[in-house]
């Protein structure tokens, strides 16, 4: 097991969030990889949907984007974008989407995400692509977030809220008119974070084999509850094999 990199462990942890039969919105990058692994191993009946309008694709190769022709293979429909977003807008009323998978450049303790820019919005130090589908996903469905675990990314206050998490606690979303869904987990290259049922604050749930809890605390720019952490279970042989083929 020693040869598993943190990035590989991250992909495995991500794949574990997808239970068989779930319907999940998948974003570009690591979510695509995690979802493909899940589909090949523990969740062959997961339905993967994408903001490009590709619904229930069955990729044989890892796609480079959510609009990649590799994703459209064996899809059930190729919706125009507005159809997809309508389905997503109605999802929280109908419970038809289980999870959305999001990335970001910065996160705070309530899971609010920045994927827009670092520094002053009008004179940014670093500019990123912006929301893409992330804001809509974060607005309408429960989410799993994926990020690199670095102190500069885990901030007291993000420079720009692109995708709302729990805002500032249990009443934050309701107050702003948002559907009462939100971040369920955060998967990083060091471990898996949960969000407390009552306070909606992030806590450490699992740390990957070989990672020390202190290392996680050092890489987190705010005070996080570490008391509930357990070591993450290593992946099965089957998952390992698939991982090696894909990564």
């Amino acid at each position, binding site marked *: 097991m020693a040869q598993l990199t943190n990035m590989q462990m991250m992909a495995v942890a991500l794949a574990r969030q997808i239970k068989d039969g779930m319907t999940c919105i998948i974003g570009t990058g690591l979510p695509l990889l995690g979802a493909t692994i899940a589909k090949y191993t523990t969740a062959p009946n997961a339905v993967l949907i994408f903001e490009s309008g590709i619904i229930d694709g069955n990729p044989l190769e890892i796609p480079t984007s959510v609009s990649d022709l*590799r994703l459209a293979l064996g899809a059930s429909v190729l919706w125009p974008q507005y159809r997809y977003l309508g389905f997503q807008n109605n999802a929280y009323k109908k419970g038809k989407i289980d999870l959305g998978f999001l990335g970001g450049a910065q996160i705070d303790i309530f899971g609010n995400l920045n994927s827009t820019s670092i520094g002053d919005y009008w004179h940014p130090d670093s500019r990123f692509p912006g929301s893409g589908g992330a804001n809509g996903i974060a607005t309408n469905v429960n989410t799993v977030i994926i990020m690199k675990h670095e102190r500069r990314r885990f901030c007291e206050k993000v420079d720009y809220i692109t995708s709302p998490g729990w805002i500032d606690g249990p009443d934050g979303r309701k107050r702003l008119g948002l559907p009462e869904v939100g971040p369920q987990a955060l998967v990083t290259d060091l471990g898996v974070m949960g969000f407390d049922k009552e306070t909606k604050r992030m806590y450490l749930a699992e740390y990957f084999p070989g990672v020390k809890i202190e290392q996680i605390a050092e890489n987190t720019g705010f005070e996080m509850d570490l008391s509930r952490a357990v070591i993450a279970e290593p992946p099965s042989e089957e998952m390992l094999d698939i991982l090696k083929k894909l990564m």
Partner: protein
Amino acid sequence: MKSNNKVMNMKEAVSTFVHDGDCIALGGFVTNRKPYAAVREIIRQGIKDLYLEGGPAGGDVDMLIGAGCVKVYFNSYFANSGFTEVCRRARHAIEQGTILWEDYSLDVQTLLYHAAALGLPYIAVKNMLGSNMIDKWGIAAEVWEKDPKLASRKLMVTSNPFNPDEQVCLLPTPKIDTAIIHVQRASAGGICRIYGNTFVDVDIAMGATNCIVTCEELVSEDVLRKEPWLNQLPELVPDAIVHAPYGAHPAQCTNHYDYDGQFLKMYDQASRTDEEFIKYLTEWIYGTEDNDAYLEKLGVSRLFNLRVKPGYGYVPL
């Protein structure tokens, strides 16, 4: 009244329907069916001060911004995903403050284009509530108010008049002068057929005042009228039909070709610095007179190697 032949060459189509200061919208998605041939011609013609609705943008928007064609960019996303995670010329322009920009979520932008196609004056959504897209506007409120190309404001948060407890975000429908989309098949009169995902293409085509369609194949009207349920646009919508095979290169085009990964990697390098980018423009855009010349430069074997494999729909590993 309609004209029955809308075929033009790219030079004519762009010079007729894209002017300095126009608001234009581009079809496709990131690295899929982007109207690159038209983008290259806009750059060749040195068109300036565009108000650019990018949708899910990639290198198309990046090249236009890098080549100095853009005054205002309405953004929801810009990446050649898998090749360049943040398009470098657009990023540079925003970081240096050389263009104006405004941020939206892709959902909202999609719905705004859809609203334009439906003729709705504005939309009410929940998306963007609780985000800084609501209160941090890229374009100052005074500019929104004064610039006749813009609505009176970016948005407004208010309560649903039918359910006062519910907050909604109102957004005005954009006024797009010209939409440019690349499709697989079109007739000379303007019937269009898109295979695979249609993204926002039909919406921008119908929401804009004018519409340029570039196509892989110029086909007889009879072929298209035999299966009208496969067509998206009637003759009534497009204003110009341009035959541009491989017109989405280096992006993908369903049933025709995959993206050109080697080219996208080259572009990733070329877009890193001003110097390299000027070299790229000189070699690949200013240095090619038109789409034919661009394709000749790419060469037959490269183009043939990009052709999708039937049954897969892409070029498998």
